[in-house]
Each structure stands twice: as structure tokens, then as C-alpha cells.
């Protein structure tokens, strides 16, 4: 039996990788992938807590998180396509019509 700490440490590590990715990358699709990585890191935490406590509440939340991530992917990729049509690039440095 592997202790829960390892799962939590992996989850925290993945969450941080995703967070740093969002902050440093400039490509909208890569940023979006990093956000998905963050959400899935959280899912890992939820599942391991759920098995630790032996109740299913956490796993139910994981299902909803997966559904939300799928809906977000649909909307997000559509928005990124709209941006690509306007700018012919998905680099967020070019998304600068409005500032301050």
C-alpha cells in the first residue's frame, strides 16, 4: 500500500507545473493545455482523498470536473480559432487591442 502522501505530492507537483506553464508560455493552446494539467492534478488529489476516507463524494466531484473540463475545451478551442482568424496567430503577445 502506497501512502497517500505520495499521491498528494505528485498532484501538487503537477499543479505547480501547470501553473508555471500558464504564467510563462505565450501560445494560447499551450496555456490551455497547462490549465487542463492543473485541473487533472486536482482530480488526482480528489481521488486519493476519496479512497483515503472511503467515501465517494470526491469521486463525484471528479466526474463533474471532467465534464466541466470537456465543456471548457469546446468553448476554449472555439475562442482560440476565432482569435486565429483575426490575428493569424495564437500568440497571446499579439492579443493587445486593449490595455489599461
Amino acid at each position, binding site marked *: 500500500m502506497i501512502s497517500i502522501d505520495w499521491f*498528494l505530492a505528485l498532484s501538487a507537483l503537477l*499543479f505547480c507545473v*501547470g*501553473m508555471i506553464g*500558464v504564467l510563462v508560455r505565450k501560445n*494560447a493552446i499551450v*496555456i*490551455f493545455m497547462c*490549465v487542463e494539467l*492543473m*485541473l487533472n*492534478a*486536482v482530480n488526482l*488529489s*480528489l481521488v486519493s*482523498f*476519496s479512497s*483515503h*476516507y472511503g*467515501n465517494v*463524494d*470526491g469521486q*463525484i*466531484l471528479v466526474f*463533474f*470536473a471532467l465534464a*466541466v473540463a470537456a*465543456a*471548457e475545451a469546446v*468553448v*476554449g478551442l*472555439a*475562442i*482560440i480559432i*476565432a*482569435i486565429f*482568424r*483575426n490575428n493569424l496567430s495564437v500568440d*497571446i503577445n499579439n*492579443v493587445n*487591442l*486593449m*490595455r*489599461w
Partner: protein
Amino acid sequence: MDYLHDINAFLPGVIVALAGLVTITIDAYKNDHGSIYGLTVFSLLAGLILSVMDMFGPVGEAFTGMITYGGVSAFGSSVVLFGALFCVLISREYLSAIDHEYGEVYSLLLIATAGMLGLVSANNLIMIFIGIETMSICLYVLAGIIKGQKIGAEASLKYFLLGAFSTGFLLYGMALLYGATGSLYLTEIAEGASSDLLFIAGAALLLVGFFFKVSAVPFHMWTPDVYQGTPTTITAYMATASKSAAFVALLIVLSKMIPAETANWAGVIEVIAILTMVMGNLIAIVQDNIKRMLAYSSIAHAGYLLVGLAAGTPEGYSAVLFYLFAYTIMNIGAFGVVAYYERQQGLDFTDINNYVGLGFKKPLMGVLLSFFLFSLVGIPPFVGFVGKYLIFAAAINAGYIALAVILALASAASVYYYLRPMVYMYFKDPHKDVPLVRSGIVFRSTLVVLAALTLYFGIAFGDLHNLLSSFYTADWVTHLVGQ
């Protein structure tokens, strides 16, 4: 389990969600905007009447404790539905005037509203998550609803990336709270609360997620860009209904789930409130775009609301609820008048410099804008003053003197940028004569009703205030303040 009772308890949400699905189906088969609009208005009105009646009814839980009904939830639902209804009423004329009336707009508005109703009734972290996400995903689409408009697509992308990023924090916070207490029910989490790292980190991450949604400084960066790029009547919806829903949920989380003894949460909220008030008001002063100015003003208002939450007393909470209602009325009105000017051809009427001399050309719109802006400043006969006064009094009574002083100073600074459009409208001569198209009867009467409400609740606020105070009964006071 008595499903009929549960559905009855959540009837406004059920009606609005069903109407959303029906309108999307109608839109797919025939392009009939009239019936979609009629159904939208009807369902929102029905939901509003039901939730207003709920406010006077009993308080309880439904769906195995996932949601609560009555009391604060019913009031939150009423504010959200009120905001949605009035935004829909002014949207139709605006969207058809700019040639972008789509049936999807109404469906998305209805589904987002259903999400908000879930959010304000939430009694479980799963409900909060679903509510926030249903609302946000619809709003990401609505921000970029005008096809081919660059600024809209940009607003949509910024909103989406930052919103999804904040969702990550919100969900991680929920996971850690679940890990610390073994439950996702708000009341059970409060019972299992402790000062160990897991609980504090979880609560902090959850609060970060909420601060993103209510656009508190330093998590406000998306607000001005999104508000500027979105079609104006939809901005009104974002600024009022979605913000009210997020604030009511934050209030429920703070009052039910996070007990003060685990950590000094009031201190955290106090610092955020000060930053939000000061930054929002200072940056609003230098804005030339009226939608951006209103966006920063909405950040500043979030700061005032946080003062009420920092006070953390029943008085503070009921003041926050009152302020949310006041803020919804006056902000929809202000955005509505801006939407009227903005759709005119010939000049860019989002630029405040082009408001010169407008006041005398269409006297009614000029007077209405003055009403709403005076109310946003917080000048006595209007509802904005009462809201601000209640929050100010709650902060003083809870001993947050510094916070109350900063609130007063910040709203004094806000006089400058709220009165600037009025000075331009009435005291300067127009440099170019642009013909203004007359507004339709529905649009005009909606704004007049809103102006009448700012005045009515500014004078006869007693009944509403007593009702809101009665939500926090004697039991509740001993439970939370006596500890």
C-alpha cells in the same frame, strides 16, 4: 425522498434551465427571435416572482442537502433574476440595432442564469463548482458573441484563459478542504475545521478562486478588458447578475463554512478590500472609455462589498445583500444608457470626450444617466447612498474604523469620474452634430423603471432592510458571533 418537494424548492432554477433548453431548440429549427425573446422574458419573470415569494417563506434544504432555499438564497436568486430580466429587456433593441441579434444570446443568458441560481442556493462545494462553471462557460461565449469583431474575440480569450486558470485554484481549494475534513457539505466542513495546513491552504485557494470571480484586486486584471470588449448590454449582465451571484456564494461560504477561529480571515479580506477600493477608484479616474470607467467602478464597488464581508457580523452580511441589490439596479441603468448612446452611428460613443452636449439633445437619456451616476456615487436620495451607509455603519460597529474611513475617502474620490460624463453632457458645447436615433418604448420604459427603483429604494429602504436583517435570526447570531 420527495422529489416533487425538492423540485418545488428549486422551481425558479428549473424553469429557467428548461426555458434555456427550449429556446436553444427553437433556435435550431426556426429562426424566430420574437418567440425566443418572449419565452426568455416570461421564464425570467416567472422565476423572479417565485423567488421573491420564497423570501417570505420557510428556510430549508433540498436534494439531500445539496441546496438551500428561502432566506439568503431566495434573495440572491431574486437579485440574479432581476438583473437577468432587465438585461434581456434592454438587450433586444441594442442587439438588433447593431445587427447582431442571435437566438443563442437568450439561450446562453438563461443557462448562465440557471448556473447562478444553483450558485446562490449552494450548500455543497460540488454545487458551488457546477454553478460557477455553468455561469462562466456561458459568459466566455457571450463575451465574444459578435462574430468577426476583433475586440470581442480578444475579450473572450482573456476572460476564458484567466477564468479557467482561476477555476484550477478554486477546484484545488475544494480538494484540500475535502482532504482536511472528509466532506464536501459546507456545514460539515465547518464542523471539521481546524488550523492545520491542509485546511488553511484549502480555504485560501478557494478564496483566491472567488476573488477572481468577483474581480477583487489583485485578481482584477481581466475585468476592464472583458467589460470593454463585450456587447454593452451583456456587460451589464456580467457586471450585475454574475457578480451578485459570486458575492452571495462568497458570503455563504464565509458565513457558513470558514469559522473565524481557524485563521484570521477577516484580516485577509480587509487587506483585499482596501487594495480593491483604492486601486479601482484611482485607475477609474484616468479612463476615457466609459465602459472601462464603469469596469473599474465595478471593481471599486467590489471593494465596498468586501468591507461588509470583512465586518463579518449579521449587520455586515445584510448590508452586503442590500448593496448587491442597489448595485444591480443602478449599474444596469448606467450600462443601459451607455448602450443607447453607443449604438448611434457617426461617433464613437464609448469615448467620454464625445459625450459633450448630449444632455440637451435627448433630455430623458441625459437625466436617466445622471440618476444612475448620482446613485453610483452615493448621493442621498438614491439607493446607492443607503447601501453605502449600511456598509459603513456595519464596519464602524464591528470596530473596523480604518476600513470605514478608507471607504468614505475612496467614494469621495469616485465623485470625480462619475461626474465627468455629466459635466461633458451639460456644460460643454458639442463639437460635431450627430443625429440621435430615438429609443424604443420597451428600452426607454425599462430604464425609467430602473431609475424609479433607485429613487424608491433610496427613500423607502426600511422594509427591505428589515427583511434582510431578519434572515440572520437570533440563533444564527449566537451561533457565529458568540463563539
